[in-house]
């Protein structure tokens, strides 16, 4: 079963299907939530809905995993984290879920995923994006990940980005 069908089946198991009103809420908040003391009331007013209806729908979308959380996304560059390396690890299958959670919880790891290997070219199944103030800083943090994984890791590499070739946001059509 692929990663996609796993997450989809989770959403289906939770019994939540998006309707047109959910979709309007998603489209209206893709750029962000109104920065006011009662943002869901402001959103409800904008969409002509009751505040309680909006709160229930947002809570349901969060429960089913459509919304991860209501949160801020930092700009790593503006915070001084100017170097990032995509560290990739060959972790024993039996330990990947537990170790992935531990690596993902490290302060300096921003994204952490279990992905499929493509043998023999690509033996790595754990991806962790590591951020630092310079390349020595990133190298020291990668060493921290290696120490955490210990004997359950059979090899790793760090792929630095040389150039951004394209960057656009994810957008759902209205």
């Amino acid at each position, binding site marked *: 079963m692929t990663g996609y069908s796993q997450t989809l089946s989770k959403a289906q198991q939770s019994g939540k299907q998006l309707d047109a009103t959910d979709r309007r809420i998603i489209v209206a908040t893709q750029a962000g939530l109104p*920065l006011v003391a009662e943002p869901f009331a402001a959103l409800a007013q904008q969409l002509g809905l009751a505040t309680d209806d909006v709160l229930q729908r947002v809570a349901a979308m969060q429960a089913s995993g459509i919304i991860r959380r209501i*949160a801020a996304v*930092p700009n790593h560059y503006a915070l001084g984290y100017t170097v990032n390396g995509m560290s990739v690890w060959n972790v024993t299958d039996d330990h990947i879920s537990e170790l992935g959670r531990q690596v993902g919880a490290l302060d300096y790891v921003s994204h952490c995923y279990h*992905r499929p290997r493509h043998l023999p070219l690509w033996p790595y199944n754990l991806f962790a994006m590591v*951020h630092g103030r310079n390349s020595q800083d990133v190298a020291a943090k990668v060493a921290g990940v290696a120490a955490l994984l210990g004997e359950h890791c059979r090899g790793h590499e760090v792929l630095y980005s040389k*150039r951004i070739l394209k960057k*656009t946001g994810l957008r759902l059509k209205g």
Partner: protein
Amino acid sequence: MDSVDASLVNCLQDGLPVCSRPFDDIADSLGLSVDELLSRVQRLLDDKVLTRFGPMFNAENLGGALSLCAMQVPLDRYDEVTDLVNAFPEVAHNYERDHLLNMWFVIATERPEQAAVVLGEIEQLTGCQVYDMPKQEEFYIGLKLAV
């Protein structure tokens, strides 16, 4: 940016409760009024310290597909292949990386069955094999700052 801002960036990454006044608890814990907190968040957005504040959507669970893909592109064809790949609207991000697999892109489609079609077209147009690496499990997404 002061230490209150740094704490605020950390708190806001962890997520707000879904309730009518979601900023109240964080404002209390930082010793700010809600108005002071909101003006700080607005300033962090204006200064581009924060890129966005709001619901973080999980694209797969919206019913579409999202995947990280890699290709080994011959160096003498790199610019040509870049143009071919970037021309697909489904390609959201694309990075050149220092590896044998030297092109890494993210594809996002609104319907799951579109992903395989797009990857097949990319292989046919570029003559390069696409290594598809959809996530099998996601761990925490976020970054914590030293305060």
